[in-house]
């Protein structure tokens, strides 16, 4: 059962009261048959035998309207399967439900539900409610504590809690919505906890510069994947997307969404299962490039979406000609949409050879920005402007070899009419419309947009990839209150060792937030030349702090 999100402010409480009979207007018909829970008040059931309260002021039964937990699908026990299937009596991932007694002269509590195999309730080391056990009656105490265990994401089920008198008549009722956290994905504003790249050499080429960058700059965060463990697959961003489930009580499950892409990193991704970590693949079948997770990104928090919004590249128009070309045909995208909190939207990436949204846009933190972030977007006009201001005879050492891009000087690029037309077409037909869509979906203002210089060239037939190493294809690291962007060295210069002589780097430094420390890294051989950049080769775990539940209009137990 999915949760319906209603967009008003939440009230966070330890417990809120159930309702007794005196709160029902005597002139109104009994509400005992009305089982539809209010979105603002606990459900009230009229007792069949009214009982006079014995204290003043009268205290109602205390129970939260909503109890949110995380699915118990990590592998704390290292049994090789999710803990849910182990049915262990204790687990730190259970969520505690506390019921406090009212002033009614009740003698017992009755907990009941219709039964579900998606959750179970534990008491004193025993399962007391599950798909077949639907009712529990226990002696009433001042406080009743039970543990709720969830099997999966974004599930919701009602639990009725009643206080009974010695004739088993209902004195007071509360309905608690037991909800499991949805799966959420992390964005670039969250603190970094771990950074992954593969470390590999391939016939003389290697990614040593990128590895050294992370190892030197972020030694406590960086974790290199060996070439063997990574199966020689440098595209760490594409194999997995890191997400999480959290609860208001502070519980957290890390989730590795393992792509159906299944190239060299497949085994490594599967090996990440363990305590507080689930690695799981949604869907199956024949993958295409759109199923890689450089094509699955998340905005920072925006209005209405406190944990950001998911976006991914897709084929525009109805999916009536090639099912496999549409990511949304996959189970994963159905699942992500069903999580509701980070409502996905799509953009057209069919003009790119690789077809991933990370190839030309990203997000960076900026405390001075209206919403704390800037949107980074590739701008072909700016690239031409910078090049036109350069000495046209500047030799472009990295671009010159025919096995590379084959442009020996800046003048050769400037003189390539087809390259100019191609990039103008891309701007008019794709980049500008996509920017408009991002403005619409995310509410971006021009002030929030940083344009980074970059051109594209044909790479697979008419489809394109970055000509200059794509700087918008960057990876943000947040550590110790400082934000960093690791991005590709554009190499628009003769002396490849002298970044200070690169006008593209100068321009980007001037455009990016002053609070952001920029690390321009040589990603040429293993990434750029193979149609990817820094972000494509990096992944990591971030600390989720976004309170995704604040869009609900109900009282949530902390």
């Amino acid at each position, binding site marked *: 059962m999915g949760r319906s999100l209603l967009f008003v402010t939440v009230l966070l409480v330890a417990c809120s009261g159930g309702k007794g009979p005196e709160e029902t207007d005597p002139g109104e018909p009994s509400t005992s048959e009305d089982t539809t829970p209010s979105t603002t008040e606990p459900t009230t059931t009229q007792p069949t035998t009214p009982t006079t309260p014995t204290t003043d002021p009268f205290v109602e039964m205390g129970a939260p309207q909503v109890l949110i937990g995380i699915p118990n699908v990590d592998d704390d026990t290292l049994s090789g399967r999710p803990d849910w299937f182990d049915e262990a009596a204790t687990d730190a991932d259970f969520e505690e439900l506390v019921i406090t007694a009212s002033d009614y002269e009740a003698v017992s509590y009755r907990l009941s539900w219709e039964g579900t195999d998606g959750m179970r309730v534990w008491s004193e080391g025993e399962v007391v409610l599950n798909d077949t056990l639907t009712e529990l009656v226990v002696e009433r105490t001042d406080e009743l504590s039970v543990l709720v265990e969830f099997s999966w994401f974004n599930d919701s089920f009602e639990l009725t809690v009643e206080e009974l008198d010695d004739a088993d008549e209902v004195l007071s009722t509360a309905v608690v919505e037991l909800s499991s956290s949805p799966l959420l994905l992390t964005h670039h504003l969250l603190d970094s906890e771990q950074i992954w790249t593969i470390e590999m050499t391939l016939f003389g080429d290697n990614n040593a510069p990128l590895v050294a960058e992370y190892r030197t700059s972020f030694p406590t965060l960086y974790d290199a994947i060996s070439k063997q463990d990574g199966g020689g697959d440098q595209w760490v961003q594409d194999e997995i997307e890191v997400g999480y489930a959290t609860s208001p009580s502070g519980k957290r499950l890390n989730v590795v969404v393992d792509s159906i892409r299944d*190239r060299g990193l497949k085994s490594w991704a599967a090996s990440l299962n363990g305590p507080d970590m689930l690695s799981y693949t949604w869907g199956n079948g024949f993958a295409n490039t759109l199923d890689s997770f450089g094509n699955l990104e998340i905005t920072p928090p925006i209005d209405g979406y406190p944990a950001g919004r998911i976006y991914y590249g897709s084929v525009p128009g109805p999916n009536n000609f090639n099912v496999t070309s549409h990511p949304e045909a996959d189970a994963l995208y159905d699942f992500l949409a069903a999580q509701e909190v980070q409502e996905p939207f799509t953009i057209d990436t069919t003009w790119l050879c*690789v077809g991933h949204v990370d190839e030309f846009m990203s997000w960076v933190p900026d405390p001075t920005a209206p919403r704390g972030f800037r949107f980074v977007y590739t701008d072909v006009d700016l690239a031409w402007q910078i090049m036109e201001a350069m000495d046209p005879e500047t030799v472009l050492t990295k671009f010159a070899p025919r096995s590379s891009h084959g442009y020996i000087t800046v003048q050769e690029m400037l003189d390539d009419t087809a390259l100019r*037309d191609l990039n103008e077409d891309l701007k008019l037909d794709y980049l500008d419309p996509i920017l408009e869509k991002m403005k619409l979906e995310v509410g971006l203002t021009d002030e929030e947009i940083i344009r980074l210089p970059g051109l594209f060239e044909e790479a697979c*037939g008419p489809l394109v990839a970055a000509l200059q190493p794509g700087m918008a294809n960057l990876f943000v690291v947040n550590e110790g209150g400082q934000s960093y962007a690791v991005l590709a060295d554009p190499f628009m210069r003769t002396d490849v060792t002298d970044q200070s002589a690169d006008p593209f780097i100068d321009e980007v430094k001037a455009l990016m937030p002053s609070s952001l420390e920029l690390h321009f890294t040589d990603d040429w051989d293993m990434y750029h030349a*193979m*149609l990817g950049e820094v972000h494509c080769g990096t992944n990591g775990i971030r600390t989720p702090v976004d309170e995704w539940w604040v869009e609900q209009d109900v009282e949530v137990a902390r």
Partner: protein
Amino acid sequence: MSWMFLLTALAGTWVEDLSVVSAQCAADSAPCDHAQNVVMGPTRAGHSKVIGAVELELGALLLVLNRELDEDRAAALADYAGRMLAADSSGQWNAVWRGMATEHPVPQVRQLLASHTRRAQSKAAVGVAVAAAADVDAGVRQAACRALASHPDQLETLLVLLTDSNTAVREQAVKAIGTTRQAQAADALVGALADSAIRKSALRALSRVDLVRAKAAAQGLMEDVDAQVSAEARRVLAL
């Protein structure tokens, strides 16, 4: 003995040219045509690409390509060989280039070999693209269009492709004509405006070869039923 010498001495079909290379390789103490001399890796898109240093001379590289049976590897080799061929100003391998670009059984190989004529150092290499323009595969004809965009003297070939039965080919042809900046193509581009499938691209191409006529045409397209065409018309009028 260099391959160049042999090929000059033994003029013949492109297959014969490669046979000469093959014979020389077989006679060499260090065989020159080993496929394992070519190192490939997967691109992010999943297809193979030649990486690292390749010791093969161009003739031997073409021989390896011609022998490769795996389509993905053959395409990677064609991409790499195409770059090398384009850099070869001697034109010594143009016959092989043309032969493989028109006769190789894998369309993607023909497509890649045709596309790399766009920036060929040898002027005669444009003949490869012209030949590819008649390919049975629409993808190869599109590649030929994109290559011919950088060869304004081959406008006639592009004009023929404007009448191609395949919409994508016509679209690439009209774009390429715009890139040639040949004002004499304006009439053909105005005619292409009648083709609703490529109208937007035709208007943009016209704006690149003759802005005055493009603006005149744009006036009549402001209310086009295709929103992309009407948007392009507004853009052209604002230029």
